[in-house]
């Protein structure tokens, strides 16, 4: 065991993991996080708290994770390299571990141009792969990037992201391999709508034996309207939504039900895909649908390990 978190234990035991995302508020209300936590408590093994997602300032991921922890819910702290340099990132990792937050997900972060402070300076002192390396160094060698010693243990279960739908497609498996080499223990992918393309990516990585070295959690985002599907297809960087899904949503009498049906069909295929060890549900502003999705996917009750 690297950190002994519930997420790590579930994945290590070979059970199919379920994680979900809880976006913190654009404000100070702890209640917003607590409500999302309560909703997700029974249907997820761990809950991700995003880090100034889409470059919009929100309550910090660290604070959101602590609020979940206090409720007895296991958090996954997301960290982007856009907003903090190596000093701040490492300091926050130590703080997180001290507070009992041991799952950490490393990302580059959406460009600040997309957010509510487009004139901000993007930091990008280190990149997401180097952040993975940093966590591994802190944990396994007990050293900072500078080479100095860290006092105490840094038990972290290291997460990274992968987008099989970005270009160049052929390079995407190599990039995953790089993240694994850097020290990633689990991967949460960009939302899967194009299942055949995702399956090709999974095939390529299993051919390289990467599924034996890292746990892949396939990302899903339920869509609740045709407008949202179109918006995701046309404007969200890194997301690919096939026209067929947009058409289904447009023709649906009850779009929300259709959105759930679509996500359930996707999850059904993901569950059977070799190398996929779990799903990560990103129900942006629709967290209350997550229990139903997990229930109808046959993934309830969550295992106790």
């Amino acid at each position, binding site marked *: 065991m690297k950190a002994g978190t519930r997420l790590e234990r579930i994945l290590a035991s070979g059970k199919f993991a379920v994680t979900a995302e809880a976006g913190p508020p654009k404000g100070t209300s702890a209640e917003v996080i607590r409500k999302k936590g309560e909703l997700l408590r029974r249907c997820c093994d761990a809950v991700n708290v995003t880090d100034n997602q889409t470059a919009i300032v929100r309550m910090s991921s660290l604070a959101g994770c602590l609020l979940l922890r206090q409720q007895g819910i296991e958090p996954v702290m997301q960290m982007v390299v856009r907003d903090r340099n190596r000093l701040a990132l490492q300091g926050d990792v130590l703080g997180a571990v001290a507070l009992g937050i041991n799952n950490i997900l490393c990302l580059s972060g959406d460009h600040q141009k997309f957010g509510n402070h487009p004139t901000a300076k993007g930091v990008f002192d280190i990149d997401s792969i180097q952040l993975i390396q940093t966590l591994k160094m802190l944990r396994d060698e007990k050293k900072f990037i500078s080479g100095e010693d860290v006092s105490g243990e840094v038990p972290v279960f290291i997460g990274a992201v992968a987008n099989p739908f970005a270009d160049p497609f052929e390079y995407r498996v190599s990039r995953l391999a*790089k993240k694994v080499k850097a020290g990633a223990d689990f991967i949460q992918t960009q939302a899967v709508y194009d299942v055949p393309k995702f399956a090709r990516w999974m095939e390529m990585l299993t051919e390289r034996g990467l599924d034996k070295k890292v746990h892949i959690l396939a990302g899903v985002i339920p869509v609740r309207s045709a407008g949202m599907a179109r918006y995701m297809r046309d404007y969200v960087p890194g997301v690919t939504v096939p026209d067929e899904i947009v058409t289904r949503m447009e023709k649906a009498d009850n779009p929300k039900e259709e959105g759930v049906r679509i996500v359930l069909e996707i999850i059904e295929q993901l569950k059977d895909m070799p190398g996929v060890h779990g799903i990560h549900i990103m129900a942006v502003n629709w967290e209350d649908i997550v229990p139903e999705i997990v229930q109808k996917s046959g993934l309830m009750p969550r295992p106790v390990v």
Partner: protein
Amino acid sequence: MKTITSRKPIEEVTGYLDKCRKVYIIGCGTCATMCHTGGKSEILEMKEKIEGSGKKVTGWMIIPTACDELTKYALEEEAGRIKEADCVLAMTCAVGVQTIALHLKDSKPVYPALNTMFIGMEDSPGHFSEVCLQCGSCVLGRTAAICPLVRCSKSLLNGPCGGSSGGKCEVSEDVPCAWQLIYDRLSEMGRLDEMEKIEPFKDWSVSVAGGPRKIDAEAECTTTS
């Protein structure tokens, strides 16, 4: 080497000149002339605007290379007209502005009329692209001679992020993904394995983060020769 400049919004320039009744204008015959930001026609255009607002232009000149040591002598030659003015408006790059301010004998403000943008490559006549961050520890030898620090919007060192789509950066349809370009060039050379290596942590202390940088070129020549 070309220092690419762009014109500041005229409101900013007139804001600087607000308290001045008389202005002396300096352009540059090198980069700013080439960029059409500080050559003769731009100076005359600026002169007309300033005079149109009821101010007097006491004189103007184009220093062949404003960032050069010879700027000192050019300023001495024009000392009379400069003295008459309340301020100097420099239509040069930031190095020119600072060189002028350094050598100006009278104590009077030197205002920039331009924004200094980057060291640029001229893709096509009059079209410039930023291709170097001047980071102080060049990675081009490992990135197929394409700089990801400045051509990737996130300065990523280890390959394209999840926002690379159809060869474009997530930031804009007009921005090519630097890592797609690097990938394509390495692919052509049959050297894609180079993209599997993890690039070490960047030493920013030799860049702007380390404080003002200085190079003693004379001393370096002596040691290497």
